[in-house]
Structures are given as structure tokens and as C-alpha cells.
């Protein structure tokens, strides 16, 4: 039972000169669960896109049952028996489970362009039976829970089995990020069932889960495979160290640069803030130079909270005060006017204005420093833009370059410069500021956050990881189901542990 069903050798992929995958190798054996772990930007999603035929590799090869294969389209990959369960669910919610399972591959379920409902449902039932799921083929997807939808995705992925001669390889991309508690157990049960007739690639950044379900774990870092470990010879601490690649995390997060905020004046005071169906009765105070980190899983309400603080979404009750004065905050226009900035998670849509130059993006929020009356002081604007490009080490040919051509990390620095260049800035809300950035760019962002604090700017932080939250924050709020469960003091030398936070999150 040791034969290799899928092997990847020396895979390489570049995007406009940026190396996403640099020599990735791994193998999947029959009836094995293989875990792939790595930080954001480690190359996991690029690898999966190559395996599903979305991207073509620039080097290396993929072998299926010992034969070299090349996947030009998603269809090629499915025909080779590789089924994908995507991170963001790809189901059409307004139609039935059966239609979703065979979307575009109806086969016998369609004759002459017309659905044969009985046949389609029988075929769907057969897929659902494989994982012993009680979901009805005729049920509309929108009536299902998240976990049930995940099961439908699984059944859909399994339908590749009929089309390929070999046993399927099922790829689960971050399947647990939207599941909780019991739902998670159901998924793990199904994975155990699946492995009797399939091989599984389990991609996640939740180390404990990976370790629990996988036989072997590959660790990716910066586009390289840096380690492979059998389940029984490794623990989560070691995996984490391999994944992050450094012994001391405090250096990475510039913890030494964290200043005490004791005695600093309160900038932002949030009292009893509620938003219908999102969060309830949230109160906290943000001092000058302080970082308040908000931890919580998807659905905890922290995303909505951050958008409400910027006026991007309305709130139903409570007050938001800046310097003791109540803010109406009906739109981002008012927030920016009083000096609240926001770095959105949707960087490419809400952060940078693609199609406009680096310089134009820097002064998009507040051109006052480079204006003379209503007019632009072109020379000063050019000089200031160059100063920001240099100061934040923004990698760009020049200030006139279309910001769309920059890498994610450099785009994020442009967004940072947009707020830092405004003398009005008092409070900055960071919504996943390091999402999708490579390690170097992350470190830069951490340094800028420390510098912001030194300038007396207050920061509300929604970080990607608990480590990030703990290392950067002075105070941490833990939210669950829209309610603040716990508060932690996280001043230098008094940092809570990740497990302390998790307790209130799930």
C-alpha cells in the first residue's frame, strides 16, 4: 500500500518576475491523507491552482500513477481523477444539490439539452452515498448549512471518480476555515471514510487539525517545500517553527519597539455599539499610540465592527466618540474628515485604485499637503510621492507606474502611504493588513505599525493570525457571535498565549 498515486517534482511558477513557487516537490500515496501547511504567501494556493489546471507551471512536472501529465484546463485535471474542494465555496446556491454536483458535466443526466431529473438525481444520490450523506439531491443549496454545503462540495469532487480510471485524489483547500465544532467532526469522519477508496490532500493553516487527520505533513515556506514529517514524529510547535522559519517571533513582530501607552489620552471611545445581526454591545477605548487587536473567527462580527468604525456600514445603536465628541459616521467621507483611516482586506478593490498611478493613489484620501488652494503643487507632489516610495521601500519603477502592476505587498504599502501622508490621521483601522503578503512585506508592515504608534496614532487591528494579534496589540478583545467574550492586556512582557484567546473564540 505504498505506491505513489500523485507526485509533484520541482514545480516552479513565476508571476511577472515574482516567484510564487520555487522548487516544490511532494508525493501522495494510495489511501493516504497528506497535509500541506504554510503561511499565506507560501505558495499553497498557487500549487492547488496548478493541480486543478488553472495555472500552467513554468517548470517541473506532475506525475499521476507514474505518468507525466499536464493540465491545461480544469477539465483535464478532473479527467485525471483529481477533485477539488475549494476554499471559497463554488456552489450555485439557487439550484439543487444534484445540479451542482454535475454542473457542466451532466453526462447521462442531460439529453438533447434537457435535464432528465430522475437520472440526474440518481447519479447525485450515488455520489452522496459514497460519503453516506443524508442530504437530498433535490434540495436547494441555499437551504443547506455551511457544513452541508461542504459535504456537497465533497460529493462534487468525488464525481471525478467515474471519469477517471484511477482512484481519485481529493484536494481539500482550507476546508475547516468555515466549519465549527460538530461540523468539523462530521468532516473528519467523512475524510476517514474517503480514505478507504481515495487519497486526500488536506491544505490548512490550522496545525492541530492538520496533525490530527494527516499521515504525513509537508511544510511550505516562501514557495519552497522546507520539511516533511510523519504524524507521530512531530508536534504543532515544531510545525509552527518550520512554517514561520524563525526561533524568535518577538523579533519578527518588532516587539521591542512596542511602547507603553499608559497615561496617553483616549482617542476613540466606543460604547455599547451594536449592529443588527452582526455584533452587540461592543465597548472599548483606544488610546493614542495604542493597538487594540480584535480576535475572532469568521462570523464573530469583528469584520463588520471594523467597517462600522470607518462609516462603511451603518450601526444600530451605541456611540463612537473621537476626542470625546460623538461621531455620526454615516459614510467613510465623515470618517476620513475627522482623521480615521481604513486599510481594507479587499486590497485590490477597496484599497488601491487600479489604473491610477502610485502617486495618485498616495494622495487619493488627502491631497492637502501637496495642494496650493484647490490646485495641485505638481513639484511638491512628485517630491512627496518619491519620499513615500523611498521611505516605505515601495518597489515600483517610478511614482507614475500604474499601481495595478505592483505586487500585493507593495500595493499594501501604497495604501499605507495614502493614510500616513494625511496629517489629519488619528486612528487607523487595519483589516487583515498582511493578508496575502510575503514574509518580508509582513515584517515591513509590522514595523510601520510600530512607527504609527510612536507618532501617537491609534490602531484597531484585525490580524490574520493569533500570533500577529498578540504580538502587535496592547489590548486584545476576543469576539464570538458578535459579543466580546474576553479582554486581555497584552502590554510588552505581559502577552497572553494563543490558547488563552482561542478559548473565547470557539
Amino acid at each position, binding site marked *: 500500500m505504498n505506491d505513489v498515486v500523485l507526485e509533484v517534482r520541482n514545480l516552479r511558477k513565476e508571476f511577472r518576475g515574482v516567484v510564487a513557487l520555487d522548487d516544490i516537490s511532494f508525493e501522495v500515496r494510495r489511501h493516504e491523507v497528506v497535509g500541506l501547511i504554510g503561511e499565506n504567501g507560501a505558495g499553497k494556493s498557487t500549487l492547488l491552482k496548478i493541480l486543478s489546471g488553472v495555472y500552467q507551471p513554468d517548470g517541473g512536472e506532475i506525475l499521476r500513477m507514474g505518468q507525466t501529465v499536464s493540465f491545461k484546463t480544469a477539465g483535464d485535471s478532473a479527467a485525471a481523477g483529481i477533485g477539488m474542494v475549494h476554499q471559497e465555496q463554488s456552489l450555485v446556491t439557487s439550484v439543487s444539490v444534484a445540479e451542482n454536483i454535475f454542473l457542466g458535466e451532466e453526462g447521462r443526466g442531460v439529453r438533447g439539452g434537457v435535464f432528465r431529473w430522475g437520472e440526474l438525481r440518481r447519479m447525485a444520490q450515488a455520489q452522496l452515498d459514497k460519503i453516506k450523506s443524508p442530504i437530498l439531491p433535490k434540495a436547494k443549496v441555499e437551504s443547506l448549512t455551511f457544513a452541508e454545503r461542504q459535504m456537497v462540495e465533497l460529493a462534487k469532487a468525488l464525481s471525478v471518480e467515474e471519469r477517471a480510471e484511477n482512484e481519485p485524489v481529493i484536494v481539500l483547500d482550507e476546508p475547516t476555515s468555515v466549519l465549527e465544532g460538530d461540523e468539523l467532526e462530521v468532516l473528519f469522519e467523512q475524510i476517514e471514510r474517503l480514505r478507504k477508496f481515495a487519497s486526500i490532500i488536506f491544505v490548512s493553516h490550522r496545525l492541530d487539525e492538520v496533525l490530527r487527520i494527516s499521515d504525513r505533513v509537508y511544510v511550505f515556506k516562501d514557495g519552497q517545500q522546507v520539511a516533511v514529517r510523519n504524524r507521530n514524529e512531530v508536534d504543532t510547535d515544531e510545525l509552527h517553527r518550520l512554517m514561520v522559519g524563525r526561533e524568535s517571533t518577538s523579533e519578527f513582530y518588532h516587539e521591542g519597539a512596542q511602547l507603553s501607552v499608559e497615561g496617553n489620552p483616549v482617542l476613540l471611545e466606543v460604547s455599547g455599539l451594536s449592529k443588527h445581526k452582526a455584533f452587540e454591545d461592543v465597548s472599548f477605548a483606544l488610546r493614542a499610540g495604542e493597538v487594540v487587536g480584535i480576535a475572532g473567527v469568521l462570523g464573530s462580527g469583528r469584520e463588520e465592527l471594523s467597517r462600522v468604525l470607518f462609516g462603511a456600514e451603518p450601526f444600530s445603536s451605541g456611540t463612537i466618540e473621537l476626542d470625546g465628541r460623538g461621531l455620526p459616521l454615516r459614510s467613510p467621507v465623515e470618517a476620513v474628515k475627522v482623521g480615521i483611516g481604513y486599510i481594507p482586506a479587499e486590497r485590490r478593490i477597496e*484599497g488601491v485604485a487600479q489604473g491610477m498611478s502610485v502617486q495618485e493613489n498616495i494622495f487619493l*484620501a488627502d491631497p492637502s499637503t501637496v495642494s496650493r488652494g484647490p490646485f495641485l503643487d505638481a513639484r511638491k507632489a512628485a517630491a512627496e510621492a518619491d519620499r513615500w516610495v523611498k521611505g516605505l*521601500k515601495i*518597489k515600483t519603477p517610478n511614482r507614475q507606474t500604474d499601481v495595478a502592476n505592483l505586487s500585493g505587498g507593495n500595493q499594501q504599502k501604497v495604501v499605507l502611504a495614502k493614510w500616513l501622508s494625511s496629517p489629519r490621521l488619528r486612528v487607523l483601522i487595519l483589516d487583515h493588513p498582511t493578508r496575502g503578503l510575503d514574509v518580508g512585506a509582513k515584517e515591513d508592515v509590522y514595523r510601520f505599525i510600530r512607527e504609527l504608534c510612536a507618532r501617537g496614532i491609534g490602531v484597531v487591528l484585525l490580524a490574520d493570525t493569533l500570533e500577529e494579534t498578540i504580538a502587535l496589540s496592547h489590548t486584545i478583545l476576543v469576539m464570538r457571535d458578535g459579543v466580546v467574550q474576553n479582554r486581555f492586556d497584552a502590554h510588552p512582557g505581559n502577552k497572553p498565549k494563543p490558547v488563552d484567546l482561542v478559548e473565547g473564540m470557539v
Partner: protein
Amino acid sequence: MTAQTEPMATRWLGDSSLKDRLIAALPLIVLIALVAVVSAQQPNFLGMSNVRGLLEGLAPILLLAIGQTFVILTGGIDLSFAVVSSLSTVLLALWLPEIGPVAVVLVPLITLGTGLLTGIVVAVAQVPSFIVTLGAMGLWSGVALTLSSASTIRISEGYQAIGWITDMRIAGLPVSALIAIALAVIAAVAFKTLSRGRTLHAMGLAEKALLMSGNSTRMIRIAAFGMCGLFSGLAGLVLASSQYSGGPTLGDTLMLPAIAAVVIGGNAITGGVGGPMKTLVGALIIIVLRVGLSAIGVPAAYEQIVYGAIIVGAVVLTIDRSRLGIVK
């Protein structure tokens, strides 16, 4: 992250800039080629009297096209603009005898108002501008027909208040065209020199990012439609002056050539790319084409076919499909 000295420029240059520059220069090349071809057919094409005639036709189309440019830059479209210019000629014909020169100021203010109203509906109700302005087109056309009893109204009493627009010449050239060109230049200079001059472009390129930088996209959109209304009113002044009358459909036939002028000049129909100078080149192309077509004996009725084809053709050639999701 530290390699500031890395010769990135070599990697970035050359991948698109030459092609982009060529596409940007294309409208001007087309204009020059068109003038050359027509001049070859008609040796006196660039003669003073001919140029004067050419420019007399330019003003209403250019004014309408400049107004439309504001809206198209934001990524919207105002289909009601030509009808609003017709309405403004009717208002002028009705009011000039009553209130005299005041009407010359009042009418563009009213069309500014109709534009703002359109903008408010689009921005507040968040309905696509295509739909709102299609409705507005029917509405204002109906108002124009009702006020004029569906007939052309000759302007005699009070005409002198607008007569100068047609009669006055500077260096032998019609003042209407010179004013229209001056307005295009002023708008272009404003875009260039105001510190928020690129806001309309940002609106067309990345509305969400603009909003999330604290700019009121609602006000920007309303202002763009307001400008379109204002310029429609100015076009109405020129039309009423040159026709000595107000008519409920006087400006309607300018809808296609004016939109054609905007897109053939190189303004992206999806918004964000372009400006009034591109529109000026586009309007000149349309005018030369119009004169050229009649010179080679193409019946006037076919002109609309040409404009329609130009609009579709220019967009097919220039549209950046990578920025579109699903085409509806």
C-alpha cells in the same frame, strides 16, 4: 525588499507602453488621415470658408460631447443629454421674448438642474445610469413636445440675446466653436491642475477605492451629471441661435454623433480613461467625416448609420476586456 537599486525599469518597460502610446495617438492619426483624404478629393477643403463652415457645425456636437465626457469618465452614460438640449431650445424660444437676455443664463441653469436631478436619482437610488437616463430621455422629450405644442417656435423678439453666438467672428472664425474649444481646454486644464482633478477618472477606474479613501462618490456622480446637463443647455443656446428657433427635437439627431465623438476620441466607455481633449479630437473627426461624406455624395440619411457603426467599432477596438467581468 531591500534591493532598491535593482534595475526594475528594464523589466517593466517595453511590455505595454509602446502599444498603449500608439492606441492613445490613434484618434489623432485618424483625424489627420481623414483630413488628408478629404483634401485630396476637395482641394479647397482647408480653405477659410470651408473651415468656417466646418467649425459652425462643431460647436453643438462638441459641447454635448464634453458634457457627456464627464459622465462617461465616471463609467456612466447620459442618454438624455441630446433631448435636454432640444428642451433648452424650446425654453429659449418661449422665454426670450418674455424675459430677454436673462433666459440665456436661466436656461443653462435649468439644464444644470435636470442633470443634477438625474445624478441624484442614479446616485441615491443606485440605478444604472443607462436606465435612469433612458427614462429621463422620454420625460424631457415629452416636456419639450408639450411646451412647444409639438412644433418649431421661431425666435424673433429677443433673438439678439443669442444672435451673437452665430454671427460673431474672431479672426474670421465662429465664436461658438472657439468658446466650445476653449471650454474643452479649460476642463482639460482643470483635470490636470486641480489637486482632486483626477477624481472623475478614479471614479471610473476604482469607485470602491475612491469611496474607501473618504471621497463622496455620490456627490462626484451627481456633479458629473450636472455638468452634462449644463453643457447640454449650452449646446441648446448654439442650436437655437443658428436655427433662429426652438424645436422639441432640434438636438435629438446629435445624440449619436456626440456619443461617437466621445468614444472615437479615445475615451473608454467603461470610464476612467480619457478627457476633454480626446473628446475634441473625436468631435473634429465626426465633423470632418460629416462634411467628407456629403462631399463624396453620401446621402445625409446614411450619416446615422456611420455614427452608429463608429460607436460600436471604436469600442470594439479600444475596450479593455480584462477589466470587464461578465458583459451584459
